């Protein structure tokens, strides 16, 4: 199973779950995170709805970065298996955009690793997102909340045990 998949096609969570379980037969805990496109603009404080996101990335560099993030997570929170799927291209409101799956012996590592991977993916992986809708087009910048979520892993004193 490939750890990192960047693709335009949608993915089937049930199928991914079955694959993860089959490949991690000793796991006692499986955590799945799925990110979906929200229908409201992130870039405006508005109730206007977006039509779709346009996602691009840096082919080659993105895959390496995602693999690095998985490897870093594994060192901190040992697990049996992790998988990242991230879509690119045109993704409509309420469609799936990203999946992180982690299978481990115990639940704490699975939860922590999945969060770590998501936080780092948001702030380090070379994806760019453009919102398209009634308010026009707008490239999104990095969010403060994602930055601080990512920074908490640098500060061991606030880390959940």
């Amino acid at each position, binding site marked *: 199973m490939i750890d990192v998949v960047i693709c335009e096609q949608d993915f089937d969570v049930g199928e991914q779950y079955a694959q993860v379980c089959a490949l991690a037969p000793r796991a006692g805990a499986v955590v799945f995170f799925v990110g979906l496109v929200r229908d409201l603009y992130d870039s405006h404080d508005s109730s206007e709805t977006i039509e779709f996101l346009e996602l691009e990335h*840096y082919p080659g560099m993105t895959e390496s970065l995602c693999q690095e993030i998985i490897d870093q997570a594994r060192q901190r929170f040992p697990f049996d298996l992790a998988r990242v799927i991230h879509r690119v291209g045109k993704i409509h409101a309420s469609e799936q955009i990203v999946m992180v799956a982690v299978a481990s012996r115990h639940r704490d590592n699975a939860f922590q690793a999945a969060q770590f991977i998501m936080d780092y*993916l948001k702030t380090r992986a*070379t994806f*760019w*997102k453009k919102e398209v809708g009634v308010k026009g087009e707008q*490239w*999104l910048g*990095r*969010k403060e909340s994602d930055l601080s979520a990512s920074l908490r892993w640098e500060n061991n004193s606030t880390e959940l045990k």
Partner: protein
Amino acid sequence: MIKVLLFANLRDIAGASQIELPLGNMVQVRDLLADLVSHVPGELIEALSDESAMVSVNQKYAGWDAPLFDGDEVGILPPVSGG
């Protein structure tokens, strides 16, 4: 030659996703960024400084003092927004 890749809003502003520059006297990434000024619209330079873009050399994040060699691929990366 140095292959410079531009992404997202920086590409839109520059009107090109890829620019080839001769290595010339460039030694570090900072030299490349200075040289870029003469090849791209002024707005791009503004966007670069405003948005604190990151830089990659051969698909790895690099600082402005990273050395440059002929044939390198340099990415000019706006703040990322995946996930």
